[in-house]
């Protein structure tokens, strides 16, 4: 949580005029005001705390802690700064991996069955722990700028693949990611849609996830975010940690180079 404003001034910091609620601009103001009020105490904090404990805890059949075993790209046990450089290529798995798929590899090294966890529905079993871990790992890079490596051919291929998947239209509605996120200044209902074909700016789009989702009261990582995008696109189900989702994350992360991460944020 941020440092609170002056004790009794806390309720006057609402810079929006009341009274006009029947046209679009003031509706947008109203939503901005709502979000400002919410940002003040983000329940993602609860996941962060849990994730930090999990990171340091000896777990799995091999009884090892991530702090002694998990390399997120910055060295074993290093968390700070790792999030804003993912997805990236990992030599041990010979894959480009995003945060969630990398955490799965680390869990596999602890003795867990990664495929089984990937197939577990969101919000159940070890998926609950993954949510806490993504909250913690992302929080440790809060305020840092995205800077995904694009030095290896595998990383460049994933960017190019991600771009193509972003524009891939399918399903009964002919939707692609670009249908909603290909132009600036658009919204669905009252929800602003970041233009993800460019750098949408600090703390927007890729730089705003993981996030606490107010609607479900759950912490969503990018994997779950993309999963629900594809559900709404009327596509079939993207596998957790599948290459299509990692390619998309690579595309968005590279496009967002230099954007400041505010994750874990709070979202509708």
């Amino acid at each position, binding site marked *: 949580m941020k440092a*609170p404003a002056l*004790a009794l001034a806390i309720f006057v910091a609402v810079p929006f005029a009341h009274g006009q609620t029947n046209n679009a601009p003031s509706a947008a103001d109203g939503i901005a005001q709502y979000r400002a009020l919410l940002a003040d*105490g983000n329940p993602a904090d609860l996941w962060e*705390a849990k994730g930090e404990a999990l990171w340091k805890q000896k777990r799995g059949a091999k009884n090892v802690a991530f702090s002694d075993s998990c390399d997120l790209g910055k060295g074993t046990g290093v968390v700070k700064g790792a999030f804003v450089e993912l997805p990236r290529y990992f030599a041990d798995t010979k894959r480009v991996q995003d945060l969630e798929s990398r955490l799965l590899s680390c869990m596999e090294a602890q003795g867990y069955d990664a495929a089984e966890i990937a197939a577990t529905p969101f919000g159940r079993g070890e998926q609950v722990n993954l949510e806490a871990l993504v909250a913690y790992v992302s929080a440790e890079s809060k305020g840092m700028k995205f800077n995904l490596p694009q030095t290896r051919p595998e990383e460049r291929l994933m960017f190019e693949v991600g771009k193509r998947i972003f524009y891939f239209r399918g399903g009964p509605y002919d939707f692609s990611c670009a249908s909603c996120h290909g132009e600036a200044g658009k919204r669905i209902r009252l929800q602003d849609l970041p233009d993800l074909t460019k750098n949408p700016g600090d703390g927007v789009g890729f730089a705003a996830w993981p996030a606490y989702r107010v609607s479900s009261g759950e912490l969503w990582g990018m994997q779950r975010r993309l999963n629900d995008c594809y559900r709404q696109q009327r596509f079939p189900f993207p596998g957790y940690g599948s290459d299509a989702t990692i390619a998309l994350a690579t595309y968005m992360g590279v496009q967002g180079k230099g954007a400041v991460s505010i994750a874990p944020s709070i979202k509708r």
Partner: protein
Amino acid sequence: MSDPMRIRAQAQGSGAVVRVLMSHEMETGQRKDAAGKTIPAWHITEMTAALNGKVVLSGEWGTAIAKNPFTEFVVKGAKAGDKITVNWVDNRGDKRSDEAVVA
């Protein structure tokens, strides 16, 4: 067992601003599960906050307090190093107590 609370207490002016996040479902009792059965209400009923062991604020809550409740209040005269303790109990009798030191 429930997850720990997050309590932040920050000295400011002549007191301290305390912000508390609790981990709780706060189930309304109005929702139905996939099988159409009503999910029973499950919510925090009472909370207290204490400064150095003395209750300064308490709350009685119903089902319409949002999931993972957030509470912010201002304790007069609290200073750095003072202890803030927060307790809650829910309608199943589960309870939790956590504390933080004013920074």
